[in-house]
C-alpha cells in the first residue's frame, strides 16, 4: 500500500499546531498547506520575505512582485507582512519559526540531512535550506523511503554533502514515520497502512528502534 504524495503531506500536516509559524519547502511539503487540520491556525513563512502566505492567485490576480521562495506567484492574506531577506533569515536563524517541512535526498540516523548537491552533477545551490535546518525549532523531512533506483535514503551516514548536521526531528516517508533524537538515534513510530516492519527494514540502512 504505502502512502502517496498527498497522504504523506496529510500525515505531515498532523505536525502542525494551532498558532504555529511554518516554512514549507518545495515539492511534497508545499502540498501540506492543503491538509491543515480544522481549528488549527498556522501562518506560512516564505523566506524571500513574507509572513502570511496565501494560496495561488486567480488568473487575473497574478502579481510579479508577489512570489514565494519557489518563485511561484502567490497571494497575500489579511495578516500578511513583508520584510527584507535579512529580516526574513533573522526570523529563521533566530528560532522564531516553529516548524520547517522539507524534502531530502538522504537523512542519517543521527539526524543529518543532505538535500542540496550531488558531486559531479551541476549544483544549483542550497538556497535557504541550510539556514532553515539550522534555525527552525523543529525540522520534519518528507521524502520517498528509497531512491528511484531502490537505494535506501535513510542511512547510517549521509553519502552526499550535508545541508545540516543533526538537524532533523522527524522523517515521513511513503512507508511510515520516524522520530529522531538529534545526535542519538531514530525510531519507527508509525507505519503506512499495509506496510510491515520488515518492509521498512528491507529498504532502510539506518539503525532504528521499533516503536509502532
Amino acid at each position: 500500500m504505502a502512502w502517496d504524495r498527498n497522504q504523506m503531506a496529510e500525515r505531515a500536516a498532523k505536525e502542525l499546531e494551532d498558532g504555529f509559524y511554518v516554512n514549507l519547502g518545495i515539492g511534497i511539503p508545499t502540498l501540506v498547506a492543503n491538509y491543515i487540520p480544522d481549528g488549527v491556525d498556522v501562518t506560512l513563512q516564505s523566506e524571500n520575505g513574507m509572513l502570511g502566505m496565501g494560496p495561488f492567485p486567480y488568473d487575473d490576480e497574478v502579481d510579479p512582485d508577489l512570489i514565494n521562495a519557489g518563485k511561484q506567484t502567490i497571494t497575500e492574506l489579511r495578516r500578511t507582512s513583508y520584510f527584507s531577506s535579512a529580516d526574513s533569515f533573522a526570523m529563521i536563524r533566530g528560532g522564531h519559526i516553529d516548524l520547517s517541512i522539507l524534502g531530502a535526498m538522504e537523512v542519517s540516523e543521527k539526524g543529518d540531512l543532505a538535500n542540496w548537491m550531488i558531486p559531479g552533477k551541476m549544483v544549483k545551490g542550497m538556497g535557504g535550506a541550510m539556514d532553515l535546518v539550522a534555525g527552525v525549532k523543529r525540522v520534519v523531512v518528507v521524502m520517498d523511503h528509497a531512491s528511484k533506483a531502490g537505494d535506501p535514503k535513510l542511512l547510517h551516514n549521509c553519502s552526499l554533502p550535508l545541508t545540516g548536521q543533526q538537524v532533523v526531528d522527524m522523517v515521513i516517508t511513503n512507508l511510515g514515520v520516524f522520530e529522531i533524537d538529534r545526535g542519538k538515534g531514530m525510531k519507527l513510530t508509525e507505519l503506512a497502512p499495509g506496510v510491515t516492519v520488515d518492509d521498512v527494514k528491507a529498504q532502510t540502512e539506518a539503525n532504528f528502534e521499533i516503536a509502532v
Partner: protein
Amino acid sequence: MKKIYPDARAALDGLTFDGMTVMSGGFGLCGIAENLIVALRDSGVKDLTVISNNAGVDDFGLGLLLQTRQIKKMISSYVGENKEFERQYLSGELELEFNPQGTLAERCRAGGAGIPGFYTKTGVGTLIAEGKEHKEFDGETYIMETGLVADLSIVKAWKGDEQGNLVFRKTARNFNPMMATAGKVTVAEVEEIVPLGSLDPDCIHTPGVYVQRLIKGEHEKRVEQRTVRQRETA
C-alpha cells in the same frame, strides 16, 4: 546635490571599472534592477564579481551579463534557473561561490552596517564551514562569516523621492534594502519618482543616505513561474 539622473546609462556614468564588485538586488526575477543591468551590459565593463541571490534567466536579468561573459565570478545562493550559467560554470569560465541564502543576506547587511564578521549556526558541519573559524557559544558551535561590500550596488524599488528615500513593494523587497547599504555607491531604479514629502516617513524602507543616484525605469517585471488556481464555478 541632485540624485535623480535621466536614464540608466547616465546613472552609471563614471562608476564602472573592469574587475569591480557589483551587488544586484532581487530574488529570482522579482525586484531586479532591469534597466541598470542592461546599462551595465552596455557599459562593456568586464571581469565583474556579482553578488546576487540568483543569476537571472538566459535572456533576462543577470543572464544578459552572462551572455556577454562580463561576469567572472558569482556569489549566490541558488542559480538553478539559468542554462548559460551552467554551461560557463561547467567549462570553468565562471567562478561560483555559494552562500546559504540567509548568510548571504546577513553578510550584505553586516557589510553595510560596519560589521566585518559575525557568527552563525548555518552551515556548521557542512562544506560551507570548511576553512572558516569555529567558535563555541553556550556549548553550541558556530562559524564566522564576513561582511560583504561592493563597489556598486544596483537596486530596484517601487517608489523613490529626490532625496533617495525608497519604498519597496511586497516580496520585491528581498535583498534590495541590504544591498543598498553595502555599496560604496548605490544606484536605484524605481517605478515612480514621487514628490518629496509624499512617502510616509514611518514607512521608508531605505533612507536616502544609502542612495547616491536614482532613475525612473520601465519595468517588464517578468514572471518566472506563473502559478494560478481556478475560480470555483457556482
